[in-house]
């Protein structure tokens, strides 16, 4: 099974990278409401036995920091 994990900075965190990209896009003439930048991790598991549970365990093992980030898991 292959999973995708989207990790985003929490809304309360000033996402400086997102802000810079937003400013750039505005200089290119685009109208932007808000631009935020996170990261995307793809994990390929060899077994599909309880694999979503395995991904959840990985999140708790430090793949994200709950103080500053949120995450979503996708089937890829």
């Amino acid at each position, binding site marked *: 099974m292959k999973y995708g994990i989207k990790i985003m*900075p929490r809304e*309360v*965190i*000033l996402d*400086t*990278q997102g802000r*810079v990209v937003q400013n750039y896009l505005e200089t290119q003439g685009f109208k932007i409401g808000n631009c935020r930048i996170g990261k995307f991790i793809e994990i390929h598991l060899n077994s599909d036995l309880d694999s979503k549970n395995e991904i959840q365990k990985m999140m708790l*093992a*430090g*793949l994200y*920091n709950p*103080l*500053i980030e949120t995450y979503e898991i996708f089937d890829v």
Partner: protein
Amino acid sequence: MSKKIGIVRFLGTNCDDDVMKWVINSGYQADYLWFQDQFDITDFEQIILPGGFSYGDYLRCGAMAARSPVMKSVAEFAKTGKAVLGICNGFQILCEAGLLPGALIRNESLKFKDEWSELNVSEDNKFYGSKLKKNQTLKLPIAHGDGKYYNSADGLKKIQDQNQIWLTYKNNPNGAMLNIAGLVSETGNVFGLMPHPERAVYHWMGSSDGQYFL
């Protein structure tokens, strides 16, 4: 016999030799500790986590180092009440390990800051009692890309109420909340700071205020 200090090395640590020279030249004994090994906590009186870029700063600064075998021993060591000092990446690792509250995130400017900083000591504490006094001013260099201290509103209130803000910047270089440059744990024996005391030990280095941190 002088006290013995353990200096932790991760892959990507790059201030380990500077810390070793600082410790030895200050008259103490020291041993390096490897990140994949646990150690006997009775062998040392203090542990230092030097700066650098452990695990290449991948995922988040300090995130993977914080979960390596040596940190299990560091956590046990901290429980005994003996002093642990994390410098720069070491501070990030202590936050990721949950030994200090909060997180260190990208500098507000997005720039790597390599410059002198003026600091203020916000609190006295028993380990540095005679050397670092409340309201003392210090000059130490910083060198980091991810040094902005962040915590939730509740988290900030808690560290203020418990007098855990140890050092503050006079001219905040990275956007840190409450100008925080250094913290101490609730238990009063785990310290973290973004500036580098080991880079300011003699006058010819530009400042000798770093010597107060041993």
